[in-house]
């Protein structure tokens, strides 16, 4: 089966002067039928990369929604092995690069080399490990690089400028800038230094930079994607997770896909020229246009 890689897909969106959309779903939640229904419609709704959550018993970086989803998925028997089988069976239908978002322990327990082999066979394009900094388990980073499984690396609002090069060097797929201090899914405001942080990351890396955590509406997406004023820069894409899962729980797959289409439209229409807060990015060009 084909294996799509996130970096080139995100770069293509950037080259087109558009902002990418990365939806996150916990694998197999609320059940496989609902999950399959939403996963197979993501591409048509305008998504670019599929961030697939591997449930973990102790998700300490996640808020209530993803905790609840993880626990339910585990109780339903979802495991890394089951997820890799699913990607192998259905990845072509999804039509998007698949990035596994996971805590590191399930990979360690699976076996590093075996995991990387099976991930490639299944068609996994990238991995994001929320509790694995570049300094830890070098053999895992190397095994991923050897198989050309791209890595996504988190940068936080608290990350100091002098640390960004090390994070950028560890990433081969994209950099994921966290919108504020906190766990996933909370609806607080975004860090005041968010777009300045995006600019610092852009300075250190050619890789696409996406922003996530707490993006809950098309308006949020536009506000984040449009970039900050002054020193700030626009990211190359936005990640949505907890809000989508909540909608999938209550309203079903069709509603989620319609919502995502709305985010796509808002980004394409309003993201570039909207006069909302934080829109004063350099020259009034669209997100990503900076590099054209």
């Amino acid at each position: 089966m084909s294996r799509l890689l996130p970096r080139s897909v995100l770069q293509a969106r950037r080259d087109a002067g558009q902002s990418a959309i990365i939806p996150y779903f916990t694998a197999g939640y609320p059940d496989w039928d609902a999950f399959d229904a939403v996963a197979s419609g993501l591409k048509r709704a305008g998504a670019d990369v599929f961030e697939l959550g591997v449930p973990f018993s102790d998700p300490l970086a996640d808020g209530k929604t993803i905790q609840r989803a993880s626990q339910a998925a585990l109780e339903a028997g979802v495991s890394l092995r089951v997820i890799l089988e699913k990607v192998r069976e259905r990845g072509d239908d999804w039509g998007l690069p698949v990035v596994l978002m996971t805590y590191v322990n399930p990979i360690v327990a699976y076996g590093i080399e075996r995991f990387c082999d099976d991930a490639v066979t299944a068609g996994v394009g990238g991995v994001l490990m929320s509790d694995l900094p570049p300094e830890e388990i070098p053999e895992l980073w190397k095994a991923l690089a050897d198989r050309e499984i791209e890595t996504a690396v988190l940068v936080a609002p608290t990350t100091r400028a002098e640390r960004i090069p090390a994070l950028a060097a560890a990433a081969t797929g994209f950099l994921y800038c966290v919108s504020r201090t906190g766990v996933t899914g909370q609806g607080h405001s975004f860090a005041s230094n968010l777009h300045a942080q995006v600019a610092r990351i852009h300075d250190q890396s050619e890789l696409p930079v996406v922003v996530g955590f707490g993006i809950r509406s098309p308006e949020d997406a536009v506000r984040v994607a449009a970039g900050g004023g002054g020193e700030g820069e626009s990211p190359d894409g936005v990640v949505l997770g907890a809000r989508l899962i909540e909608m999938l729980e209550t309203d079903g797959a069709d509603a989620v896909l319609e919502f995502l289409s709305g985010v796509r439209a808002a980004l394409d229409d309003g993201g570039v020229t909207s006069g909302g807060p934080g829109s004063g990015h350099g020259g009034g060009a669209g997100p990503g246009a900076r590099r054209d």
Partner: protein
Amino acid sequence: MSPSPSDNDANPLASSSDTGRFGPYGGSFIPETLSAALDELVLAYEAVRGEPEFWSEFDRLLARFVGRPTPLYRVEQLERAWAEPGKAPRIYFKREDLAHTGAHKINNSLGQALLAQSKLGKKRIIAETGAGQHGVATATACALLGLDCVIYMGLEDTRRQALNVFRMKLLGAEVVAVESGSQTLKDAINEAMRDWVTNVDDTHYILGSVLGPHPFPTIVRDFQSVIGKEARAQILDAEGRLPTHLVACVGGGSNAIGLFHPFLADSDVAMIAVEAGGEGVDTGRHAARFAEKKVGVLHGTKTYLLEDENGQIRETHSVSAGLDYPAVGPEHAQLHDEGRVEYVSATDEEALAAFQDCARLTGIIPALESAHAVAHLRKLAACASDSDLILVNMSGRGDKDVQSVARILEEAP
């Protein structure tokens, strides 16, 4: 008696632990948001290591507020009761149960609260607690130093340890009952970490054991090493020789490390750490990490832990809330592999028997955690020789457990 840098330099492990690695264990497996706070903590701690004023203030509080040094007490009743006639070893308890707040936990809470106040400039403290002892100790240190305090405690544990919940509230702390997961210590740590990730700018997390990301295992060990330093001087004073055996219970492992660490270079001193055997290590319902030999990553550190075949952390079981935790401090993992410390377990039943026997025979009601060490002492004493000199860490007192033990004994057939 403070854990001053010069004392640590004498230890062969000090250099390796300064990097946060204990052989292949330890490290710093954390969300990126926390990396700046941990870097800052490393720097702050390195700075105070060379600051005599910090340690003299710590020593002053340990002496005047905590009541240190805690006594080393010879338990002749157990020598008579539990050994073969004519083969009785000498048995001593290190009386951490007599420290203010009733357990060794105050040593670390006070040290870190002082660090937060004087070096980190953080006014808000969070902590997790299992049995409630670390929560009470942290609430106490915060009351003393005028810091805001929020304690995360599993809902199940708030029921098991209702008295300690009230005690924390009296001391001015907010107690948050954690309803996620197994509602015990590991979930309280998850929730405390989530708070820290959210409020890292003004908040310090006082982790209660030799767990978590670097530099916590090192900092907590250093603050708890006062136990072993005192005990070493006291036993030399009382007996003119070092103990043949040290015994301590091990949940995360702070009271055990605190006792063991100053003796590590004394190769003739045998060290035994007692894990929670729960309903028996064959039943799967226990917290004996070294019984299953799985290594993984939990709460920021690489160590031995209890997990299923998919790397999901297993729920543990122990009658003692303070030992009911699926991972063990990374330095213990190293000491285990090196064979320097022997890791054994005691079941709920053995600990409950030791709890009652110790109370009746000695006039000391041990914490259920410490009762695991006493349960192993009984086995050790039964096959000891009269030249043996056994030193047990009475890490906490059992007042907090009286109600739950009463309930268990009533329900027993």
